[in-house]
């Protein structure tokens, strides 16, 4: 299984605003540059899940920033997600994702046959090379359509 990441993706204020609206989070630090600066921040803050969601944003070639080659996405479910922040992510940051360790194992499922679990670690660095975020995702691929 290979992960494909773009060399860097800028965190944009307008995209943060759109994303925060979509999760109905009216935290002014996500939307209002003046409020963010008044709080001593360099710019508006990206919601914690923004960076993880941004792994789905297409790169200039049209591919998602993160792809999971070898998985049949028709049968993949999201089992869990852990985000560990070293610092908040701000508009103006340029992040680079580094794939880390990938672990996979199988379990017998009751309704979808054998289930394959894939745990992936991704490290996000900022434009200065500092680590800002560690993400661990657990994906579950079932053997086929889940029998309800």
């Amino acid at each position: 299984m290979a992960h494909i990441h773009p060399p860097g993706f800028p965190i944009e204020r307008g995209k943060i605003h759109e994303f925060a609206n979509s999760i109905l989070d009216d935290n002014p630090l996500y939307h209002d540059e003046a409020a963010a600066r008044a709080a001593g921040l360099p710019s508006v803050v990206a919601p914690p899940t923004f960076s993880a969601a941004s792994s789905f944003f297409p790169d200039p070639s049209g591919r998602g920033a993160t792809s999971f080659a070898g998985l049949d996405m028709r049968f993949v479910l999201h089992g869990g997600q852990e985000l560990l922040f070293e610092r908040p992510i701000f508009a103006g940051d340029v992040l680079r994702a580094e794939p880390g360790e990938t672990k996979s194992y199988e379990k017998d499922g009751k309704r979808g046959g054998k289930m394959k679990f894939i745990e992936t670690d991704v490290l996000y660095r900022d434009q200065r090379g500092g680590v800002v975020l560690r993400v661990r995702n657990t994906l579950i691929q079932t053997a086929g359509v889940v029998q309800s």
Partner: protein
Amino acid sequence: MPIEEMSLGDELRTHPDVSLANVRRFTSAAKLSFGRFVDHEQARKEGLPGAIVPGIMSQGILVAAIHAFAPGCEIDNIDTVFRAPVLVDSHPTARVVVTDLDPAARTLALDLTITDEANETRVAGTATVRL
């Protein structure tokens, strides 16, 4: 509420909007193109009871609930397990409960859940936030 006035067990419940229209708004913003999130029929073909809320949207809903509980807080970490799908067009409840607090460090430990109409837990997690 200032951290000095908070107690273990303090909680907040919210009722997030997971209507099809709102999930479509999220998937558009997050560039998630899977039919199972926005098309009940497609989801049923995949063996699901109907369209499901993306896990990362559920995590976002919990983050929004945290910010409703502790406005302006900074989230140091959040860990969620998606035990069962949250169904689109259902009426879930998001719950944030204080499980530990450190007024000196100005940090809170929180338990997080999203439950369905039958009070069954669909998403569970924990978070540490800094006030």
